[in-house]
C-alpha cells in the first residue's frame, strides 16, 4: 500500500482494499483479546501453556551451553585469589560450626515444645524439580521459565523455591515447561516477616530485580541493612519460614531488598504444593493479578 492505487487493475485494487479491511479486523480482534486477557487471565491458559512447550525445551537445551561458558569464567576467577579465599572460608567454617551446634540445640528444643503443643506439622512435599531456563528479558514484568510442566505434576498457582530462598509462583503451565511469576515482579505480593524480631511486613517486587519491603504497621522504620526477610505463611500459598530477601537500602517508610534466590544463579528450583489449599480456596482466585 505504498500508493493509494496500485494501477488500473480492478483485482489489485480490491485485493488492497480487502487487505486493509482485514488489517482493521485484526486490530479490533487484538483489542478484544487484550481486554479479555486483562479481565479474565485464565481464559488463555491452555494456549499459553502450549506455546511454553515450544520455547521451554529450546531454552533448556541452550541453557546448558551458557552455564558451561559462565562456569569457565567464574572457575578461572576462583583460581585467581585461591589463597585469600581459602583462609576466609576456613574462618567462616569454624564460625558456622559453632552456630550449627547452637541451631541443633534450638531445633531439639523446638521439637519438644511443638510436641507439647500438638502442633500439626507440614512435611515439605516436592511436586517437581526444574531448572530456570529463561526469563522475560524484554518486558517490565519479571517472569522466569522453568523446565518442569504439567507432565511432572506442576499446576498453576504452586509456589516455587530453591535452596537459597523463595523464587515465586507458577502462573502458566505447559506440559514441558512453566512460567514463574518471580518475587521481584511488581504484581507479586508476599506476606512476610522480619527474621530479627518477627515483625510482619509485606514484600512486593519492584520490577528491576529488587523487592520493596514495608512494615504492616505504620510507625518507625523497623529495617536495618542486612536484615533477612522470610515468608510468614499468611494467606496459605507460600510455606512459612522460607527466606525471601536481604535488605540493602533503607528508604523513608520501608526498605529495598535483594532476593536471596537469584534466578540467574540458582541451578534448581523446586515446585511445592500450595501450603494451605483450603485457605486459598476460601479467598478470591489467587492469580487474579497476573496477565
Amino acid at each position, binding site marked *: 500500500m505504498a500508493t493509494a492505487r496500485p494501477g488500473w487493475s480492478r483485482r489489485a485494487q480490491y485485493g488492497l482494499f480487502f*487487505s486493509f479491511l482485514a488489517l482493521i479486523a485484526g486490530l479490533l480482534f487484538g483489542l478484544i*483479546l487484550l481486554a479479555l486477557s486483562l479481565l479474565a487471565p485464565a481464559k488463555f491458559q491452555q494456549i499459553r501453556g502450549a506455546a511454553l512447550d515450544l520455547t521451554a525445551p529450546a531454552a533448556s537445551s541452550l541453557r546448558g551451553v551458557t552455564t558451561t561458558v559462565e562456569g569457565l569464567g567464574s572457575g578461572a576467577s576462583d583460581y585467581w585469589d585461591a589463597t585469600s579465599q581459602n583462609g576466609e572460608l576456613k574462618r567462616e567454617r569454624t564460625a558456622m560450626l559453632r552456630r550449627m551446634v547452637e541451631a541443633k540445640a534450638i531445633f531439639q528444643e523446638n521439637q519438644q515444645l511443638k510436641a507439647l503443643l500438638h502442633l500439626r506439622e507440614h512435611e515439605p512435599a516436592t511436586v517437581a524439580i526444574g531448572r530456570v531456563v529463561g526469563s522475560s*528479558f524484554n518486558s517490565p514484568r519479571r517472569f522466569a521459565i522453568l523446565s518442569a510442566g504439567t507432565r511432572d505434576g506442576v499446576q498453576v498457582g504452586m509456589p516455587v523455591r530453591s535452596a537459597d530462598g523463595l523464587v515465586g509462583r507458577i502462573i502458566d503451565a505447559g506440559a514441558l515447561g512453566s512460567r514463574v511469576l518471580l518475587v521481584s515482579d511488581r504484581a507479586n505480593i508476599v506476606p512476610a516477616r522480619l527474621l530479627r524480631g518477627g515483625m510482619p511486613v509485606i514484600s512486593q517486587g519492584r520490577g528491576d530485580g529488587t523487592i520493596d519491603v514495608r512494615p504492616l504497621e505504620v510507625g518507625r522504620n523497623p529495617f536495618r541493612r542486612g536484615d533477612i526477610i522470610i515468608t510468614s505463611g499468611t494467606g496459605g500459598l507460600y510455606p512459612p519460614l522460607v527466606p525471601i530477601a536481604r535488605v540493602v537500602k533503607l528508604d523513608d517508610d520501608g526498605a529495598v531488598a535483594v532476593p536471596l534466590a537469584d534466578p540467574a544463579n540458582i541451578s534448581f528450583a523446586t515446585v511445592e504444593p500450595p501450603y494451605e489449599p483450603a485457605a486459598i480456596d476460601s479467598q478470591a482466585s489467587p492469580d487474579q493479578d497476573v496477565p
Partner: protein
Amino acid sequence: MVRSALATKRRIGQGPKPFAGYIPAATVVFASFLTALPVISTSGWYPDFGFLALISWRLLRSDPWPAWWAAPLGLVNDLFTGFPVGFSVTLWSATMLALDLVDRRTMWRDYWIEWGLAAVLLAANEWLQWRVAALSGARVPFLAVVPALVIGLCIFPISAWVVSRIDRWRLGR
C-alpha cells in the same frame, strides 16, 4: 569480448529464492522465538526482538507481507514472549496502519527519517507495555523502562541492516 566484459554480471540461476514471499514473515517469527534464549535478566532491558524485526521489514519495504498478517504474527509473538495475549496483535496491526499513513505523507525517505520513525514506534511499544503492565497490577515507575527503549534504539540500525541483507538474499540480488 569487450561487450561481454561491460555487460552487467548476471549469473544463471540467480533469482528470487523459493518461498521468497514468506521469508520476511518467517524471520519475524524467528525473532519472536529469540525469547527462548536462555538469558536470565532481572532488569528486562532487552529489546522486543519480534517488534524490531517487524518495523525493520516494514520500513525497508512497503510490501513484505499482506498488511493483515501483522495480527497473526503478533499473536505468535504474544504467545512466545508471555505478553498478555492480544497486546502485540493490537500494536502490530496499528503499526502497519500508521506506517501506511506515513508512506502517503512523506515526500522522501532517508536513514534519519527511518530511525526517527523507529524511535516513535519503539517508544509507543515501551509505553504501551508499561501501561498494560500497570493495568495488570504491576505498576512500575516509567523510568524503569527507559533503558530498554534506549537499547532498542541503538539496536535498530543493526536489525535494519540484517533485514536488508536478508531481503537481498531472498530476492537473489
